[in-house]
């Protein structure tokens, strides 16, 4: 037995134990299986340690403001990222239970600790299942991050945005959630036209008012009636689950989505609804930042937890 294997066995006592038990039982078959298992685990470990990521660590990887993890061959070295300079996006992939959320928490925690000294801010969209993000709030100083649930979040997708043409807001909302609502080009146009008509005739505008108005709207052609009915049914599906979020008359102040560290918990497990709500918040945030250059100093990291179901287009 070589030294490496002995070291490997010392660090994995469970494997040795199963081999000992098999020997005690005196079953050749069990011993053979335990030995095979040890061999396989050892080979896997070798593959991870020596092969195939054996390149030198690029020196850029150790410069940055946010540590993402330890370099496996030398755990004393921290691998860092510089969020302030990233121009692309981040993809964090892995099967269930492999620690996607943990690595997110590690990054967000550091952003929250830098609250006073930088303009880095994060926003997390989490479904009811993944409430680990609540830890971020209670593990850090009060006032550096906030947890919003359905009782606090008030969302009016039709309310005006500072310094922005209301027609752009309508156009954004008409497109937002089009995929989630299953609307094609003509359906989107219908949504946009009816939104314009609704806003022209009302002062207090909100999503629930729009759906009620749409339900009473008379349409002359069969096509239009089809668009109307489909749109109502799909919007009602969302309102059924999230009525208390949209049941507001003054709406959000878009500033606080840009200025603060936020964890937003939506009471649903469906990524279809989650992507609808996060889509609304994000599109408004984009418009707000674009129209108010003062807020461009903030660098925002938006975390979309388990969103892939809502991103599909087939």
């Amino acid at each position, binding site marked *: 037995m070589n030294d490496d294997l002995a070291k490997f066995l010392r660090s994995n006592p469970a494997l040795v134990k199963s081999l000992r038990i098999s020997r005690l039982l005196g079953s050749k078959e069990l011993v053979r299986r335990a030995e095979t298992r040890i061999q396989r685990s050892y080979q896997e470990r070798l*593959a991870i340690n020596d*092969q*195939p*990521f054996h*390149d030198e*660590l*690029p020196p850029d*990887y150790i410069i940055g403001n946010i540590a*993402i*993890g*330890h*370099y*496996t*061959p030398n755990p004393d070295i921290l*691998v860092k990222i510089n969020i302030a300079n*990233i*121009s*692309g*996006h*981040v*993809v*964090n*992939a*892995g099967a269930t*239970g*492999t*620690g996607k*959320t*943990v*690595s997110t928490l*590690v990054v967000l925690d550091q952003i929250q600790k830098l609250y006073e000294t930088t303009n880095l801010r994060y926003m997390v969209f989490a479904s009811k299942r993944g*409430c680990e993000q609540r*830890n971020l*709030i*209670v*593990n850090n100083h*009060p*006032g550096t991050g906030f947890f919003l649930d359905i009782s*606090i979040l008030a969302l009016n997708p039709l309310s005006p945005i500072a310094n922005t043409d209301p027609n752009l807001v309508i156009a954004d909302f008409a*497109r937002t959630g*089009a*995929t989630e609502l299953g609307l*094609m080009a003509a359906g989107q146009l219908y949504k946009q036209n009816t939104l314009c008509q609704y806003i022209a005739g009302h002062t207090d505008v909100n999503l629930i008012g729009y759906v009620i108005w749409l339900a009473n709207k008379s349409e002359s052609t069969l096509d239009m009636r089809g668009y109307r009915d489909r749109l109502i049914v799909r919007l009602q599906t969302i309102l059924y689950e999230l009525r208390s979020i949209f049941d507001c*008359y*003054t709406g959000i*102040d878009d500033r*606080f989505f840009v*200025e603060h560290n936020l964890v937003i918990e939506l009471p649903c497990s469906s990524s279809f609804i989650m992507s609808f709500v996060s*889509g609304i918040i*994000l599109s408004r945030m*984009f418009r707000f*930042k674009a129209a108010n250059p003062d807020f*461009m100093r903030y*660098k925002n990291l938006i*975390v*979309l937890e*388990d969103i*892939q*179901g809502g991103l599909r*287009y087939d």
Partner: protein
Amino acid sequence: MTDHTQLREASTYIRMVNESRYLRIVLMFNVQSVALLPQQIRESASIVLCKRLNDKVEVSAIEKMMNFSSKEQGEVIMHLKNADAIFIDKERGAVPVPILVPLYPARQVSDEEIHAHQSGYINRILEGVVRERPPQEAPAGREEEELSYTAKIIIEDLKRFAFDFQEERATRLNMNVRIVADQLEELVEKGWLRKHPEKINLGKGKGQFQPYFFTEIAFGKFGRQKISGKGSIVHAFWQYRGGKYYSKRSYRADTEHFLSDNVTSVDLDLTKDGEKVAVEVELNDTPHIQENILKCIREGYDKIIIAVYGSKLLNRVQQIALSNQEIEPWLASQRLILKTLDEFLD
């Protein structure tokens, strides 16, 4: 066929992926399936953090994203431990490196703890967000109205026995049938119950049955109404009546009994003194009637009863049975019994 191009243009995120660079916004996608991510997102990712993936399709998708140089690197992805990850920053170096993600002390945090932690601060940031809800309209005085004792026990009875006849209900509750009928009508008027739009035909000269169901108000106060069986209301009704009829004749009746394959089920499974009987209720002429009979035969029942809606369907089922070599002997030996629903429970 769905036009993908149109929908792809419409997706909120894909628009944002392109615009966000100018607005200093970074999107982080935490996903289980990389292969499902749209092409634009995969291409625009500059930092990729990959944990263990169990699927080869996913691994091949991540290989392309992370510029892997050899196949062995892909295989490592499938054997990573929970804290291990492979990291690549395409803007700096573009070399995939293995990293160890430190543990984060996560635990269950209650609403109260969150509230205590952020109270005082949350009001400050929510300044300007005033939730003014319109006054709730009182639901036409229904809530205040107190139900009579008789009405309450009738609703409770209806909750458990939705498909019982008025006479059975009256006997069980020790009431006059007339009073039960009047109370049900009154509850419908007050909005606690609703009548099923179609009455169920019980057969020639036997009249019709009117099912009553809970409205949302009754559901809110008394809970869900128990309706056993599956399919349409008429199907569930006949399943329930069949079960009740045979239970009285000391059969052990089981609705929607699963067969040994654990996938298919028989409408009603009856057992008495070791004799096993299957009952199937058929309301429409569908191609699966033959399958339904065959699955009962293969399951090893001693007797099969098929109750069908109307004499036309009865003839049709008879033809099916006679034309099938496996079913025909069962019909001849009277182990397969065909009945219309009119005479099903005589």
